[in-house]
């Protein structure tokens, strides 16, 4: 693995660091509450979380500019939605199948998007959205825009043909897209060793795709890898495959007790919990992060309280919206939150650009 520490030191401010921790805490708190709501029967269907993998989606999305879309976060990547700025209350309403602005009850789980902040919701067929992200990148290249697209997928998803079509296409056209492979060592019950003989990262170069492996439980390392991939993309140097090594700490979904996973492995990875590690690191660094968890808990509690008062969708609307009836005016994907302090710093240096 490359050394990310030094680069992180150069790139991240203390505000960034606190922000990264906060978003990871938020992701965990939302998902813990989600699991509880599921068990209380308030979330229909099923519930999936990314416990232990918070550093991946939070770290990577932190590196995006407001105009860089995520297409798409997957079931372990709630952090991408949060970093981009999707409203918490809406997320809970969505989870519970209540009327909400994200999916109007048409979708559940992490299958939401928020076009306003530039997040395209996932489809279940893995990894279809890699191809769509490649298409976004193709459009940016065609319009000579300084933007790139970020897409997530698991180790298991690399076995499907669409993985290949996206890798090949992006490599061929040197497109500004970041492929983030979340190697949590499992695909449902199937270990990576039954998914591929050799780590897909080894194929990247032979697609014309730059590749890098990071500790997926180190949020700064993930951030740096995504940051560098974005720079490369914007410089016209093509796509990057980032492999984030991590571990799925819960079952595949709330219904799955994951008894097929070696408890020793879970204990080992628990000791590397991305949130605990990062809290300790920031404390060591002299940052006060003691109040964050409480803040976050309050934020979640409030969002849930409001969400619980939201009505269910009106059944009369069930068949509406299959087709779009008026042409979208201009681009549909809006700007998400811009978290990395580097963007603000650049904007200060370029006041006219900031005004635009």
């Amino acid at each position, binding site marked *: 693995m490359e050394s990310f520490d030094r680069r992180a030191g150069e790139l991240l401010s203390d505000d960034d660091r606190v922000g990264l921790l906060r978003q990871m805490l938020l992701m965990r708190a939302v998902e813990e509450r989600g699991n509880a709501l599921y068990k209380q029967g308030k979330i*229909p*269907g099923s519930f999936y979380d990314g416990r232990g993998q918070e550093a991946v989606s939070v770290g990577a999305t932190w590196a995006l500019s407001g105009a860089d879309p995520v297409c798409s976060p997957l079931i372990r990547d709630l952090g991408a939605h949060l970093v981009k700025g999707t409203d918490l209350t809406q997320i809970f309403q969505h989870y519970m*199948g*209540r009327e909400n602005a994200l*999916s109007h*009850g*048409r*979708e*559940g*789980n992490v*299958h939401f998007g928020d076009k306003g902040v530039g997040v395209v919701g996932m*489809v*279940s*067929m*893995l990894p279809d959205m890699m191809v769509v992200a490649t298409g976004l990148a193709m459009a940016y290249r065609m319009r000579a825009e300084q933007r790139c697209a970020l897409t997530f997928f698991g180790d*298991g*998803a690399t*076995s*499907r*043909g*669409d993985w290949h079509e996206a890798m090949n296409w992006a490599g061929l056209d040197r497109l500004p897209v970041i492929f983030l492979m979340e190697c949590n060592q499992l*695909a*449902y*019950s*199937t270990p990576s060793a*039954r*998914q*591929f003989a050799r780590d897909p990262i080894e194929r990247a170069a032979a697609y014309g795709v730059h590749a890098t492996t990071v500790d997926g439980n180190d949020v700064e390392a993930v951030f740096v890898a995504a940051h560098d991939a974005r720079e490369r993309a914007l410089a016209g140097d093509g796509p990057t495959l980032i492999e984030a090594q991590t571990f799925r700490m819960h079952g595949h979904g709330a219904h799955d007790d994951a008894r*097929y996973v070696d408890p020793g492995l879970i204990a080992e990875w628990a000791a590397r919990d991305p949130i605990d590690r990062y809290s300790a690191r920031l404390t060591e660094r002299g940052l006060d992060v003691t109040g964050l968890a409480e803040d976050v808990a309050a934020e979640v509690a409030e969002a849930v309280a409001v969400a619980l008062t939201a009505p*269910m*969708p*009106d*059944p*009369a*609307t*069930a*068949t509406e919206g*299959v087709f779009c009836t008026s042409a979208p005016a201009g681009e549909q994907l809006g700007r998400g939150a811009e978290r990395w302090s580097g963007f603000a710093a650049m904007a200060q240096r370029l006041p006219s650009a900031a005004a635009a």
Partner: protein
Amino acid sequence: MAVRTYLQAISDGLREEMRSDERVFVMGEDVGAFGGAFKVTDGLLEEFGAARVRDTPIAEAGIVGTAVGAALAGLRPVCEMQFGDFVACGFDQLVNVAGKMHYRLGLAVPLTVRLPVGGGFSGGPFHSQNPEAWFMHAPGLKVVAPSTPADAKGLLAAAIRDPNPVIFLEHKHLYRRVKGEVPEAALPTPMTARIARPGEDLSVFAYGAMVHTALEAVSELEADVEVVDLRSLVPLDEEAILASVRKTSKALVLDEANATCAAGAQVAALIADRAFEDLDGPVRRLATPDVPIPFSPPLEQAVLPGTTRVKEAIRELLDY
């Protein structure tokens, strides 16, 4: 006869075919130690070993395509799609490779693809679909859709023993909800329709979960309604359909799938063409409108055909 759930009956059928024919093997995502997403293959790994209970990569084209190869080599693969929805990712291998092989080259492809299908439990747009019509419209594929435990077991045996590629639809909502007597012996069910409830005044045609919806609706009405469980969609038991209409003169065709070009459209078109003189009323259809299946319960209930709407449709047609 033992009382088994629909799910247990499928498991039993699979186990018995594997016991009696060593060419039979299962493959799919997480079908081994985990026993499959719905536990249909639970215990098979222990009994038959990893060579015949094969965990695969997430590769639906790979699953269907390698199964075609194994079938050509003389084996009898039974593929599980984790959810029937994912068959879209293996679509080309099914319709272009498996389905056309015998007609083009005289090569039999004895292959079964099990599809857990259907909605009703907030599975949302990607875990609730009923894709059978796509395959009915692809020559060379058989399509069966049991509604009872006995038929689930019997049609699975029939599918596995059939020398052709067979799409086996198992409705997720029936898995644990439906129980029934199932013969111990592994008797294949013929790919024909079954009168689920005889009647004289109106015929309801349904398959899979909709058979239960129809029976429930009829049981709440004072009317002599026949319910025909199609069981097999390809081949479609045209004679049984026409015979029922000839008797009752009125037809309601039920579908959980999206309405346009659904199985029910084919059944209705058949009746309109070949039983026109026997009809005393329009050929009514009830199906899910052309929308992805929404997640939120009130929305999902609004689109899936339920007993209330079935009863209404029956009443209206009886009064016609």
